């Protein structure tokens, strides 16, 4: 039989430009339900004005990212059991470092724009996806197979990043990871974008992005790799003009 927990859901409420406050909703849940289920229940049975984003419910669309008890989570795959106890409180807030549109929904336009600017691919040849082993160790024949990129563009990494917090212009982990996967070799014009104040050097090695990424992108590792790419490129340009 399924277990029952009584929890309090504290939802951050805020219409554009307002200062946020919390509304509390008491409810009975199955601890093995997901945080998103609890938020949906508020909307379905308690308060029709609660605003949040979601679509696929299986960690593919990247729409339901929120801060749950201060930590960035993809709420559709975060079970309530992992975040609180029976009788406990679940605090849900919108992602940081994005403008809040309403309650839990943020405007991620800047992320999508920047991903497009660095030519981040949503589908790429298997060897370049660096799954399981580095690109160089794949059989060239595998180049014909493609797969979806790991990044689901959920923005959790941007929300968790202390550098993005102080500088809204910072390209941010997901974008730099996209640039890394794309590669400076293939796209030399990316250099001026990432070798800049708001590019790779703005990262202060806090590794928060990799800690919260729900999709194994490991943006921090990719940023470090991009640094090596940038450095190699700059160094070789010293000797022959690009």
């Amino acid at each position, binding site marked *: 039989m399924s277990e029952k927990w009584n929890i309090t859901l504290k939802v951050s409420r805020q219409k554009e430009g307002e200062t946020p406050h919390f509304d509390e909703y008491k409810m009975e849940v199955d601890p093995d339900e997901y945080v998103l289920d609890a938020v949906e229940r508020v909307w379905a049975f308690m308060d029709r004005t609660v605003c949040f984003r979601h679509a696929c419910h299986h960690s593919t669309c990247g729409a339901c990212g929120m801060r749950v008890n201060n930590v960035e989570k993809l709420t559709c795959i975060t079970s309530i059991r992992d975040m609180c106890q029976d009788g406990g409180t679940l605090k849900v807030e919108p992602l940081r470092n994005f403008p809040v549109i309403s309650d839990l929904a943020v405007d991620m336009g800047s992320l999508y724009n920047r991903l497009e600017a660095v030519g981040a691919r949503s589908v790429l040849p298997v060897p370049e996806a660096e799954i399981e082993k580095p690109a160089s160790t794949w059989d060239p024949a595998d180049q014909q197979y493609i797969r979806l990129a790991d990044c689901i563009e959920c923005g959790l990494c941007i929300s968790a990043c202390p550098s993005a917090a102080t500088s*809204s212009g910072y390209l941010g982990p997901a974008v730099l990871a996209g640039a890394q996967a794309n590669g400076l070799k293939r796209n030399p014009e990316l250099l001026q974008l990432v070798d800049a104040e708001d590019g790779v050097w703005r990262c202060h*090695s*806090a*590794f*928060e992005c990799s800690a919260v990424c729900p999709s194994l992108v490991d943006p921090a*590792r990719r940023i*470090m*790799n991009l640094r090596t790419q940038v450095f190699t490129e700059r160094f070789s340009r010293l000797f022959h003009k690009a």
Partner: protein
Amino acid sequence: MEKPSPDKFWTWFNPVGRETGGWAFILNRVTALGLTFYLYLHLVILSQLATGPQAYDQFVALMRNPISISAEVLVVAAGIMHGLNGIRIVLTTFGFGVTRQKQLFYGLMALALVIILFFTVRMFTA
């Protein structure tokens, strides 16, 4: 256009909801600011050396009280933590141990603790 926003500037300092790497970053920056302050203070004080033996020896004598020594211990501790944390940053930047950065951080900080304790004991008993 992005405007200077000093209010948001302090968000880096907030440790709530952060992880190992985030704390390391905060620690690194706090010690960096402290060490920068100390560095320039140190340089000013060293100018005493130029004025001659009396001034310098007097100053050193003045510094031999528990409060100044505690302050020095703080500086030493900050330097050691910043330096060892820096090793983590250099290693990971060049692609070593990126996936092990937490263990790296705790290992280096444990080492820092040992060195700091050693210096603390030594400085108070010397």
